[in-house]
């Protein structure tokens, strides 16, 4: 046995490509499923959340303006980098009490790959031309809706998170993610992967802390265009959905299916966070 004392990681927030602590100075202790202490995670404040929304909004024109091919390449690279950090994710999933950590990591990596491939295909499958009854060329394209708040599922802290974030960002949305409160560390590690991938700062912002605090703030924020409430606790859903109505955010919720199954991934998850834009143009000499 080596008597070397190991160097532990400080789990921090991920906002605009940087890793700040909460401006509030708050943190909470993270434990494994069987009660072992795993360290501390930041407990994000309302101001942190606002900062994250500002970063996401600022990143939106650049990210949505990239070619679909480029976004696909970047998402695929996230999968490549996760594969290289497999051991770390597996150990974090084991701490979180996952039944089969290697399977969980593989499924999360494959989900990035699956959604990466949709970047330049979703418009071909769900958009198209419209044969209007007149001399007009009329076509419908799919565009990202803007800034998306994602309240990640409490369990399936990695696969569940990837399953909600990938379909949001592949079309060009930018996101503010509230990580699983109980098992935030896989989300923090994913943020560290994203920070060293080619995903631009602000495209994915990750907040750790109290879901009960953060979800209503996210739902009420007037510069958030859509919210994924998959991880919102049942007793808060009504409040969150009421707050959302103020600026008519799009509300989506992940399907209640086995997250490992093919049913847990769909191009309609991409469409749920996108707008259809139809263009008319006259035809004539």
């Amino acid at each position, binding site marked *: 046995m080596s008597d070397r004392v190991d160097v532990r990681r400080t789990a921090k927030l991920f906002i605009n490509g940087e890793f700040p602590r909460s401006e509030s100075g708050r943190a909470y202790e993270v434990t494994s499923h069987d009660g072992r202490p795993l360290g501390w995670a930041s407990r994000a404040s309302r101001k942190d959340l606002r900062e994250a929304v500002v970063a996401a909004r600022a990143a939106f024109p650049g990210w949505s303006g990239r070619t*679909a091919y480029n976004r696909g390449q970047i998402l695929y690279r996230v999968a490549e980098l996760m594969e290289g950090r497999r051991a770390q994710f597996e150990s974090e999933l084991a701490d979180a009490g996952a039944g089969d950590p290697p399977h969980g990591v593989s499924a999360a990596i494959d989900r990035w790959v*699956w959604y990466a*491939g949709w970047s330049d295909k979703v418009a*071909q*499958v769900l958009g198209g031309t419209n044969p209007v009854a007149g001399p007009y060329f009329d076509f419908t394209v799919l565009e990202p809706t803007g800034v998306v708040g994602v309240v990640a599922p409490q369990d399936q802290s990695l696969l569940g998170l990837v399953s909600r974030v990938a379909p949001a960002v592949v079309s060009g949305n930018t996101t503010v993610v509230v990580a699983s409160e109980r098992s935030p560390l896989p989300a923090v590690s994913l943020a560290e992967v994203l920070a060293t991938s080619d995903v631009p700062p602000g495209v994915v912002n990750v907040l750790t802390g109290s879901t009960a605090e953060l979800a209503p703030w996210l739902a009420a924020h007037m510069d958030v265009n859509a919210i994924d409430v998959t991880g919102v606790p049942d007793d808060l859903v009504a409040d969150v959905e009421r707050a959302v109505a103020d600026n008519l955010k799009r509300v989506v919720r992940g399907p209640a299916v086995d997250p490992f199954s093919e049913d847990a991934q769909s191009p309609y998850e991409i469409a749920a966070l996108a707008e259809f834009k139809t263009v008319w143009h*006259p*035809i*004539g000499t």
Partner: protein
Amino acid sequence: MMKFEYAPAPESRAIVDIAPSYGLFLDGTFTEPSDGGVFKTVNPASEEVLAEVASAGARDVDHAVAAARRAFEPWSALPGPERAKYLFRIARIVQERSRELAVLESLDNGKPIRESRDVDLPLAAAHFFYYAGWADKLGYAGFGPDPRPLGVAAQVIPWNFPMLMLAWKIAPALACGNTVVLKPAETTPLSALFFADICRQADLPPGVVNIITGAGDTGRLLVEHPDVDKVAFTGSTEVGRQIAQAVSGSRKRVTLELGGKAANIVFDDAPIDQAVEGIVNGIFFNQGHVCCAGSRLLVQESVAEELMAALKRRMAHLRVGDPLDKNTDIGAINSAAQLARIRELSDAGAAEGAEAWSPPCELPDRGFWFAPTVFTGVSQAHRIAREEIFGPVLSVLTFRTPAEAVEKANNTPYGLSAGVWTEKGSRILWMAERLRAGVIWANTFNKFDPSSPFGGYKESGFGREGGRQGLEPYVDLEPVRGKAT
């Protein structure tokens, strides 16, 4: 004003290691041809022999098809997401080796390094990426919930874009679960043989991709092989016709991407400088060795004089020469045979009364070269207005009205592509509706993207490559049709 002297900027060929000889890539390994036949591939810019390449005979073709047949069951049974990952790997290795492959392509083909580096290789990698992403999404492609592959695909590709055409053929075939036997053109076999190495580096299961080399006879043996389920050919209309006859009566699915004689139509409101760039790109890109080249310029009479003056000014600045020089605009003609064909048609143009013009340009002593040439005073009856030249030769005709432009543009047995230059959006769409061609470029030309289907009307062939439509030639449609009835 200070004048800059021209200085060459040659790309180093040291990055490419070409072996003295290559066998056939069968079942995952390089194999000597059974009858020992070989041929030489040369650098068309210098006539230097680059390598000796095996010529596959009947037994070799048998072996290749048998290897592909054996590989078919396990490959098609592999879940889509796993097949996808092999294609993603291939895409990544093509990207990693793209500089090497670009130099190789320019050496074997004669195309300018600027084009192999900036067009052929990036597009080839992108094509593998795009179809990798379909391999695990076939149920969304519109061919039923679980589309099935056809089996063994025989693929024969031309010499003008060797690596890119390989990607167009192999990527969708593999994505759908088919296995392939591919034959590159006899004048440009090297990039396909390097690709065989990429398949090994990607740990692609043996037999999924087999590469056989040889001339037309090898190609004929391959497409006529009774255990082939699918034939995909890109090349001349003449050979395409022979293939259509050869497979008649069999149940082989066939796609053909053949010749063209595209009209590039310039209206009087078009921005002249942009149009000139588009015309030059349309006909001189890749020495005009492009099936969709804009080889007929149709210009509205009122701007013909101004446009021709601007075009000649621009042509005078084209640099013809060493394909590996990063300044080069026009490289070498791919082969002596192709050069002879270009000369024959060009001579016919002059003999039939059209007027040829070329900028003064010095051609290298060795290798195969043809100066960029524009013919004016061309009538629709002239051979240079009707036949595909497949070289840097532009025929100019004029028109007065949009209807006349459509009439002239469609007056050809071909129908691969067309270009329209006008500032008026409604006219672009009006023209696009009436042009009988598979691809219409508006205020641009020679644009390609893996997500964009490409292919011809009429005698330019049938089937589309690229896009969702590009999957169809590699999917068994019988079950889908069954459901529809």
